[in-house]
């Protein structure tokens, strides 16, 4: 990804900003410029380039040029990112009382919310996990708790650790009836 080449005036060194220094009573005249080193001909190319080619990387300039809206920029970035994402990570998912389990690709999900949505749909239920709010209590008859077996063989409730950490430690999932 390239970045904006010409840095802003304000990110240039303090010398040229003191050149900008106001003398509020001066009248406007053609040829007025911010750099004292400007030649008589204000259109001489090298002068512009030396004013503007101060290549101080100003980090907050990076995303405001060119002026495309975030949706289009995001799409442009997605195209570049998606080139290599064909990895999968299937884990087994069992629901209590049902002998035949399912398999689910964890890497096809963005995070916990996405995963819960898929499981809700797959098993036609409402899943309880560690980030639930009180509103699900109305459906307590059809609720299940989502747990996972980690690398150490312990059964833990889903949702307590960051998603990436979860991915690195989960071995399989189990959906049990709510206590």
């Amino acid at each position, binding site marked *: *990804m*390239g*970045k*904006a*080449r*010409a840095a*802003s*005036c*304000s*990110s240039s060194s*303090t010398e040229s*900003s*003191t050149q*900008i*220094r*106001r003398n*509020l009573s*001066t009248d*406007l*005249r*053609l*040829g*007025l*410029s*911010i750099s004292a080193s400007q030649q008589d001909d*204000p*259109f001489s*190319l090298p002068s*512009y380039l030396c*004013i*503007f080619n101060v290549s101080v990387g100003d980090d907050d*300039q990076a*995303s*405001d*040029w*060119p*002026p*495309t*809206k*975030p*949706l*289009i*920029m995001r*799409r*442009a970035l997605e*195209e570049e990112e998606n080139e290599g994402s064909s990895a999968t990570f299937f884990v087994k998912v069992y629901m209590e009382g049902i002998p035949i389990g399912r398999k689910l690709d964890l890497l096809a999900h963005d995070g916990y*919310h*996405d995963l*819960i*949505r898929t499981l*809700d749909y797959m098993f036609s239920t409402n899943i309880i996990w560690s980030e639930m709010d009180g509103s699900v209590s109305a459906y307590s008859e059809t609720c299940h708790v989502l747990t996972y077996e980690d690398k150490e063989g312990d059964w833990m409730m889903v949702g307590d650790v960051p998603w990436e950490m979860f991915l690195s430690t989960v071995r399989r999932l189990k959906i049990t009836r709510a206590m």
Partner: protein
Amino acid sequence: MSYSSLPEDVLEHVFSFVQSDKDRNVISLVCKSWYEIERWCRRRIFVGNCYAVSPRMAIRRFPEVRSVELKGKPHFADFNLVPEGWGGYVYPWIRAMAGGYPWLEELKLKRMVVTDESLELIAKSLKNFKVLVLSSCEGFSTHGLAAIAADCKNLKELDLWESDVEDPSGNWLSKFPDTCTSLVSLNIACLGSEVSFSALERLVVRCPNLRTLRLNRAVPLEKLAHLLRQAPQLVELGTGTYSADLRPDIFSNLAGAFSGCKELKSLSGFWDVVPAYLPAVYSVCSGLTTLNLSYATIQSPDLIKLVSQCPKLQCLWVLDYIEDSGLEALAATCKDLRELRVFPSEPFGDEPNVSLTEQGLVLVSEGCPKLESVLYFCRRMSNDALVTIAKNRPSMIRFRLCIIDPQTPDYLTLEPLDVGFGAIVQHCKDLRRLSLSGLLTDRVFEYIGTYAKKLEMLSVAFAGESDLGLHHVLSGCDSLRKLEIMDCPFGDKALLANAAKLETMRSLWMSSCSVSFEACKLLGQKMPRLNVEVIDESGPPDSRPELPVKKLYIYRTVTGRRIDMPGFVWNVGEDSALRLS
């Protein structure tokens, strides 16, 4: 006989034929009684800057309004220049309107922060609410939408154009009651996650007046045919993802469904396009007037095939994959074209990835006699091309050119593009909106100040050499309302010399320019009816007065400084000391 002796209801009836805000404002200035009559029968207000007036004042003056349109953040917020938390909150307006406009029917918001609380308040308090348009808004989730769906019994339009909506899992679409049959327009294209397809389908089936349906990316292509068959009366359609396994049965089903939609005039969506499925829409192309392919990664040959079948096309938004060859085909076929937007597929690349140059735009300007609105991203331009375009299309109203590398000169002569843009403003006498790019000196601003008398909005970046440039614009552009500038060497002189001009404009944005903090203070003190706001996230601007101000937003207002400024925004007016940080 005096006009003021006409009975009030006769005058009111006459005024009802006058819709334009400007004309209404003129009417209200004729005399006191006309002012009174007019204000009681004004039904629609447009507030271009939500901080220019307070909701209380608006409601007090116009008590019987049915439709309100508000805009919040400055335009450059679209390009990440306005930090999070800057403002633009709609809640105070909604709270005021819940009491003051109980019969409000329409609310259209742009670049505002809308919360679920605001949406819930609308749903609860406005019993006749019909139209909600949230354009480039943020701050709300599908919980708020659920409230609107559930409680607005007469909802006709719900449009979430390019808004940033949080999507906790929740089936908000199914909150539309079975009794809701009034929907005319639904645009959920910006929603990130899945909506319940069965709820969507049931909604579509029971709303026979549905004319506009813009789906989000999550709706699979296989299901689109099904929806279309339930709503063959659609005039505007946004597809979901336009990709599926290549199967003849899916294709024929889709093509059949499209051919049943005899009223379709507008198409959009087309995420993840599989080109083999494009011919499914060919049957509707002959009637299409609007085609939005901003997200469609379709290469030029397929684009040419598509566009060549749309002779009635008036508006095309497309990625630069269309290339010069595609624009040539467009110019040959679409003689009714009014608006063209070409977006960059790789805005951050250093090298051009497509063969799109100034030639494409020149060809369209030659071939399309009704062309009046252009937004064009490209990598090279010449004065000759701009002069040709200007002479071809003197009826141009909006011309926005973005040459991707800042300060790119005329690629043929290496000169600045002053003459080219000068020709644009000279020939296009009705030009209302202009965006500049490329290498530009003060001379282009001299042309603009001299010729662009109808110009209302000007966007400038990396241009000019001195305050003279800004002075030309502020002193010459009689119709100027909005001016936005980034990275230009404009400083205090022009700003202070034209302080009075700023009160005739809606707003001025300047970032990364050379305006001093002292000048801002002076301006703020001199002009009590302007809010002079300095945005600086690194600390109080008066602590480093030798540095130019980073971001400056100046707007006229009748309500004084706003009370919701975050810690990084300073209002530098008045004699009172700055807020302590």
